[in-house]
């Protein structure tokens, strides 16, 4: 966790006091957390004198980075989604306050409780015997998809989202023939839709906290929308989120079977491999576009972050996976 120059912590303290009825709030620690490829997460350690959070609290403040990507919700909308999920009993950090006034902390933000555990993909996937965690994640995914999402969430059809990817590629300065080929495949292999549900749309290793081998909470709700339930399953299993364990097809932590069984136990529906394959192709395409958009934040938006700028190079990794998924003849022999 990198300690950076203190932003206006006194204004933040006043805001927290007003929200909680505390007579005073002392901010003992404020540090930018690692991760958060698109948003900034700040670890806040605060001592509340009285009010509804009296005592020492470990919090996270989440606010927009300097630039963003188009499909990301605003922080206030993400807060509303997190509220709905938390209220329904989904394992997630408790959302506490949201603030639209940029004068308080530079940009709109929300505050949630800081849960224990690690979300670090390489750490999580280094664990052994993670079948129980995979089952827990499958069950939790089914639980979150049963939440009634806020009315403002987008309900674009799959065809509309594919069209959105093409619109992006039309603006992109370099041709991406592999992505075009995969988009064409998606267009011509659209599955029969299932009843739409709340989709997290970034449900993957790296975005959940594991504490002592168990799921502590699901993070990063900024891409949530209403859509096909198998989208989250395809995203979770997509190779880009397996970190160092490409062999473990469920998020780098286990085989698919325990994850699917956990999902079935709560949803009553066993994922159909043919549908999941469609959504894995979709996931690779979507991840490629997001990766390119991350580099756009440097190229067009002036976000001088090396980790953001370099992400676009990962689009070609998605393209390799798309070729492997879609070419019936497989990879060429050396």
């Amino acid at each position, binding site marked *: 966790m990198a300690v950076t120059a203190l932003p206006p912590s006194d204004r933040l303290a006043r805001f927290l006091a007003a929200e909680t009825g505390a007579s005073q709030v002392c901010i003992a620690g404020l540090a930018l957390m690692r991760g958060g490829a698109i948003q900034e997460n700040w670890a806040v350690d605060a001592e509340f004198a009285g009010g509804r959070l009296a005592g020492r609290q470990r919090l996270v403040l989440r606010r927009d980075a300097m630039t963003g990507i188009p499909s990301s919700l605003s922080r206030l909308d993400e807060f509303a989604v997190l509220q709905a999920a938390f209220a329904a009993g989904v394992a997630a950090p408790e959302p506490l306050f949201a603030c639209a006034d940029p004068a308080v902390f530079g940009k709109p933000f929300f505050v949630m409780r800081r849960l224990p555990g690690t979300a670090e993909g390489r750490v999580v996937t280094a664990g052994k015997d993670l079948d129980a965690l995979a089952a827990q994640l499958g069950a939790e995914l089914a639980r979150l998809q049963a939440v009634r999402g806020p009315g403002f969430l987008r309900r674009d059809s799959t065809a509309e989202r594919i069209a959105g990817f093409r619109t992006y*590629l039309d603006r992109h300065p370099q041709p991406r*023939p592999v992505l075009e080929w995969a988009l064409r495949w998606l267009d011509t292999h659209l599955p029969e839709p299932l009843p739409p549900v709340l989709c997290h749309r970034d449900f993957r290793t790296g975005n959940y906290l594991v504490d002592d081998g168990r799921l502590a909470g699901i993070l990063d709700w900024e891409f949530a929308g209403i859509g096909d339930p198998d989208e989250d399953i395809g995203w979770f299993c997509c190779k880009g989120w397996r970190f160092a364990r490409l062999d473990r097809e469920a998020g780098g932590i286990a085989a698919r079977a325990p994850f699917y069984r956990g999902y079935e136990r709560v949803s009553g529906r066993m994922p159909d491999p043919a549908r999941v394959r469609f959504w894995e192709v979709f996931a690779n395409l979507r991840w490629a576009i997001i990766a390119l958009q991350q580099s756009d934040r440097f190229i067009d938006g002036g976000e001088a972050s*090396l980790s953001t700028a370099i992400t676009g190079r*990962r689009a070609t990794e998605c393209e390799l996976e798309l070729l492997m998924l879609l070419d019936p003849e497989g*990879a060429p022999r*050396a």
Partner: protein
Amino acid sequence: MRDLPPAGELAELARRLLLDELTPLLPEERRRDAHLVATVLAMLRREQAAGDGPACEVAALLRAFYREGEASLARLAADLRRGEFETSLSRERAARAILWRLTILKLREANPQFLAAHGIV
């Protein structure tokens, strides 16, 4: 015209210095940034060593594929969007071969370890 040693070799020396000697001195939370810098130096060196070779190879494949008219990745992308080769197995197979080659050449520069992890060199 340029003085020796070549900048690509200096970049590799710089990368080794960064990883072997400087990174261990950094606090844990900054080591990932150091690895990112090392990744960029390695990429730079590979791109410099490859020069125009990959672009020329893809251009030659496209010329052989199209034989006449514009032979560009933009045309290939547009044709694939329209499903242009779907009625001819041989054309589709030839187009796929270009996609594979393009992707492998790009990854050889950007992330050869990723290729190796998939059994491709």
